[in-house]
């Protein structure tokens, strides 16, 4: 299991990378390589040119600006997981990232790589959906373009990125200071791909009623699924067991698909259970944030 031969490019700047992308016919961007390299080793992917963007320093960085989090595409998953200010401001990131592979893959794996690979089970894609992320892509021909996460998923493993475009940055809308979160995922073993995962964030008023609910499912469709019906049920309510149950029940009206390992019925059942667990955590956790 060895990768097929390719030409290797190590651009030092983003401009250089974009020029290479516009010139090469069958090129792949190499970010952290934790999904691309296995596919190359198994020869699911055979690229003529590999453009390694690991040395473009400008693509790495984490910044919290008011109520937004800006993350450069080449930021390692480990670095986001261990970011102290983010742990305080939005602890769901560390919680969700602990489910992404293992320490050794998170040390290489990047935020931009995860979003561009767009695995249906991706925890990061789920967070991006829940936090209404905006994804910046750039090309030589058309310059800078911003994509809303809601229209980013075109099909399985197919994000809205043209062959000559490079994902450069993602901007997450952070929840307000007073919020609680939950994250639940079922996989065969910890660190494996999620069969179904659910995440929830409740922003709360002083009387403990929910002023804004954000709930998302991963692993059930080509892209993340925002549970707007469940969000509507909970908005303005106190998170009582009955309200949480009713919200989790909305997952049962969605359509589920089976695959080689998991039947549609099983996935549907897991969707309710994982959603209920995420909601219970979000309702029960102590107040977080500033």
């Amino acid at each position, binding site marked *: 299991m060895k990768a*097929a031969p390719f030409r290797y490019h190590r651009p030092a700047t983003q401009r250089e990378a974009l020029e290479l992308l516009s010139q090469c016919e069958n090129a792949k961007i190499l970010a952290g390589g934790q999904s691309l390299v296995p596919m190359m080793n198994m020869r699911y992917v055979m690229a003529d040119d590999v453009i390694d963007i690991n040395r473009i320093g400008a693509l790495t960085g984490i910044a919290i600006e008011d109520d937004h989090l800006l993350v450069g595409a080449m930021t390692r998953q480990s670095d986001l997981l261990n970011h102290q200010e983010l742990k305080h401001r939005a602890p769901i990131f560390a919680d969700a990232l602990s489910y992404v592979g293992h320490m050794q893959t998170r040390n290489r794996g990047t935020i931009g790589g995860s979003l561009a690979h767009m695995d249906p089970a991706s925890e990061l894609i789920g967070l991006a959906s829940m936090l209404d992320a905006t994804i910046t892509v750039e090309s030589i021909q058309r310059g800078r373009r911003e994509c809303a996460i809601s229209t980013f998923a075109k099909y399985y493993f197919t994000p809205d990125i043209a062959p000559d475009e490079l994902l450069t940055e993602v901007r997450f809308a952070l929840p307000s200071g007073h919020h609680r979160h939950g994250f639940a995922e079922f996989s065969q073993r910890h660190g494996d791909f999620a069969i179904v995962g659910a995440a929830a964030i409740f922003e709360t008023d002083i009387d403990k009623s929910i002023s804004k609910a954000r709930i998302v499912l991963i692993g059930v469709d080509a892209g993340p699924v925002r549970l707007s019906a469940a969000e509507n049920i909970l908005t303005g309510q106190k998170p009582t067991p009955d309200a949480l149950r009713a919200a989790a029940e909305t997952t049962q009206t969605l359509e589920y698909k089976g695959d080689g390992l998991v039947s549609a019925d099983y996935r549907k059942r897991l969707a309710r259970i994982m959603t209920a667990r995420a909601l219970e955590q979000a309702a029960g956790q102590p107040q977080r944030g500033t």
Partner: protein
Amino acid sequence: MDQTIITLTVNGTEVTQPVEPRICLADFLRGQLNLTGTHLGCEHGVCGACTVLVDGRAVRGCLMFAVQAHGLKVETVEGLAPDPQQLNPLQRAFMKHHGLQCGFCTPGILMTMTEFLRNNPAPGERDIREVLSGNICRCTGYEGIVAAVIEAAAEMRGEQTESSLLTETNPT
């Protein structure tokens, strides 16, 4: 095939070699540098046998091309022992607690735990198991590995343990 010249530091020694871009770091270490302590199991990032440190961080040696390590510092299992006659505290604890049986996965686990213990000098069992989840061992059942890491951490913190006593010439 076209080759690229790369220069990197491996266990403290600078190495310059031509390498084909498609060669992964683990194959480069084994095939071109004869550092065969790094093993390859699954070759798609699941088993962790090929784990090495790159700039101090544990990574899968099969999921990084050797050309990507140009200019970086690589540490392998061969660099752990202070000299050929002596093991380091982590290796010693693995021996004492039967943290290995066939030994195939051991180099990867040692490298994973080397980074982990540098950042977490006093880890809990739960944290050790969480990190260990990135390495697969089919012999030991992991119990001995966890016990070894707990003891190695204690010894590296300067606490006296049974395996530290084993190496002292005049135990008190």
